[in-house]
């Protein structure tokens, strides 16, 4: 599914110095000559919001009576994606791009002409889905969470595909590595979650 919103960031793609860093000449991952693109910034920005929603709903597992198995998976998601949010925020900061807070809502996008738009990233749960999940307890929470998080993870993979479809994108080694890791980790987790759904006797989305 191609990303239908072509966007332009108002901030020129200029490399600003990173925030003050106590050490000399930090290591650069990859080829310093390779500049990042707007697509990289868009991906890293949007994925912060996407991850924030995963962290939010996975954090409900203990209070919503999730099974032990799901609580374990959720804990991994909370820890893993919280760290990745830090990684994305650090990267944006180092590129002099605006750094969004980790809110589980839409991404603010500035279109050509300065119009602001709210854009939800692929796979994110809408308000109703979030409310329904928050109201569920025990086995029903398990079921709704698994369905929602499978969709959510698949959305992350869509975001990576969109990134890789943009000219010059993911030449930056941090972006390439992180986006590859997202696909590898989340694909693995999708398989696990589908197995968990099947084991609970639910229909597994294809």
């Amino acid at each position, binding site marked *: 599914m191609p990303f239908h919103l072509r966007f332009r960031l108002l901030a020129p793609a200029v490399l600003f110095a990173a925030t003050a860093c106590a050490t000399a000449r930090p290591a650069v991952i990859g080829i310093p000559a390779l500049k990042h693109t707007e697509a990289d910034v868009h991906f890293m920005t949007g994925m912060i919001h996407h991850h924030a929603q995963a962290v939010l709903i996975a954090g409900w597992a203990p209070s919503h009576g999730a099974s032990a198995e799901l609580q374990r998976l959720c804990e991994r998601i909370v820890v893993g994606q919280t760290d990745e949010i830090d990684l994305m925020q650090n990267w944006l900061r180092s590129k002099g791009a605006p750094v969004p807070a980790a809110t589980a809502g839409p991404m603010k996008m500035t279109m050509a002409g300065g119009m602001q738009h709210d854009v*939800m990233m692929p796979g994110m749960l809408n308000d109703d889905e979030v409310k329904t999940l928050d109201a569920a307890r025990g086995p029903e929470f398990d079921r709704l969470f698994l369905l929602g998080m499978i969709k959510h993870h698949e959305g992350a993979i869509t975001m990576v595909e969109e990134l890789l479809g943009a000219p010059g994108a993911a030449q930056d080694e941090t972006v390439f590595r992180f986006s590859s890791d997202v696909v590898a980790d989340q694909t693995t987790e999708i398989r696990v979650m589908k197995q968990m759904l099947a084991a609970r006797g639910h229909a597994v989305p294809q």
Partner: protein
Amino acid sequence: MSLSLLPFTRAAGAALLLAACARSATVVSTPSLQRDARVGLKAGLYNAGEAISNLELMATTKSPPGFEGVTNSDLAFSGKYAIQGNYNGFNVWDMSNPRRPTLVKSYLCPASQSDVSVYKNLLFVSAEGLGGRLDCGTQGVRDTVSSERIRGLRIFDATDIANPKYIGNVQTCRGSHTHTVVEDPKDKDNVYIYISGSSGVRSPRELPGCVNANPDNDPNSSLFRIEVIQVPLARPQDARMVNSARIFEGLTAPERHADIMTAEDSARMAARARTQPARAPRPAPMRGGGPTQCHDITVYPSIGLAGGACGGYGLLLDISDVKNPIRIDAAADSNFAFWHSATFSNDGSKILFTDEWGGGSAPRCRATDKPEWGANAIFSIVNRKLKFHSYYKIPAPQTNVENCVAHNGSLIPIPGRDIMVQGWYQGGISIFDWSNPDKPVEIAYHDRGPVSDSTLISGGSWSVYWYNGTIVSSEIARGLDMFDMKPSQFVTQNEIDAAKTVRYTEFNAQGQPKISWPPSFALARAYVDQLERNKCLSALRIVAVRSALANAERANPSSRQGTLNQLSSELSGEAAGSCDANRMRLLSNAIKDLSTVS
């Protein structure tokens, strides 16, 4: 199941959390020992604080200009040379004096991750990232479809290692994250390479035949397979893909180990839980399952097995037919995110898998990170099936500005024990004994403070291997480290000396050689030391054996034989009555071998 080495700091951290958020959970805390010297080290790129135990840091050498500040990656060894991959190409170091490695060649040819392997006069380098160019240019490849891009394997003729010649490459659909050289004992004309790649599939317009589809829908899918490359030794430039081994076919999900949640786990989760109002999203379409791929494969041709770290599974492969690896078992573990690499014990009875949770970019060794996450998992191999035993993770907590997780290492050829040295990124290097798969024990370490105290900047040991007596570590940000192992309560000088008698002409950690020890007095003494340590030979007898060995060593070779033969047969006779009969026989044989060579 046992968890090794729960440091007091971790236990204390857990206790704090529990006190804050749980009423009835009990905590078993380990007695507080001295504070680990690795905690609280000063940050700095070249002037960081250091902690070291039972090792000597012989040399740290910065990467050369053009490579300094760019990620150093994996290592391969050929003769007296260490070849160090770097995202800008590779560097060749002469390590004949490990206290002063000298740069022989810097080859600028950017590609991530530049995973390197050697085979005789050939050097192979992995290319995976989107910026790698066929012409070794540094400008990247801006087009999404381009004839200038390489993702796959570069091949160099390194006959003259100071002037490697780029002779060819093999393009693959997902590029090569890592690769593994495999010798086929039945085929002297070719060498084989297994390619592992876990990033995106290329467009068929860039590389014909690449298919990004679920194999259920398209049997030619580039997913769910490993690529087998054949390299003709007479014409290596003609290397090509000869098989896509579908080692995942028919894989049903194995029972996952450790699907348990303790009260402590729940309490920690609850403490972290955050609530934020979510906003209305745009619904997205559902999609089917995704790719499964190996991250890394370790082959052990002498026993016909390979360990594949493949997505959510650890696979055991039969590689007796090198071109057609076959899956014989699979393991899954709910504590493992993405299986990363594998190491066999020398006797092939055990295998250790690593979980590079977070891809090496994240700080996964904080006091709040569970010791079984981002760790090693140790399995025994029983009737060609994997049986889980325990986890091992470095016992010293690291900061949140240090990327840290289990990564690459190799066996240290100490006879009669399974000892491994391993890189943990900014967790430093850790040497541990996993002879007892239920109770791995750390025996040495080196660690530096973070590269930066304010931001997580990538650094630390990408990989660390034992090669011909020296421990060599590729430090992502700081260059090349050379270590010497020191005797301690865990390891005697004789055991280290025996390890140093093992010499290779070349070494790739992902191709495990069967270790065998040439006859030496150090080898015999190493076994004696081990029998003393486990108290399976009486103190009196140990004194007598040591004295006999010392006399034999002083005697001239012709008169030595009788003494050694007699000692060997005595010990062989005593073996059955010892609590470690096997080691007694190893000792007896080592002494017998001494008599025939001296």
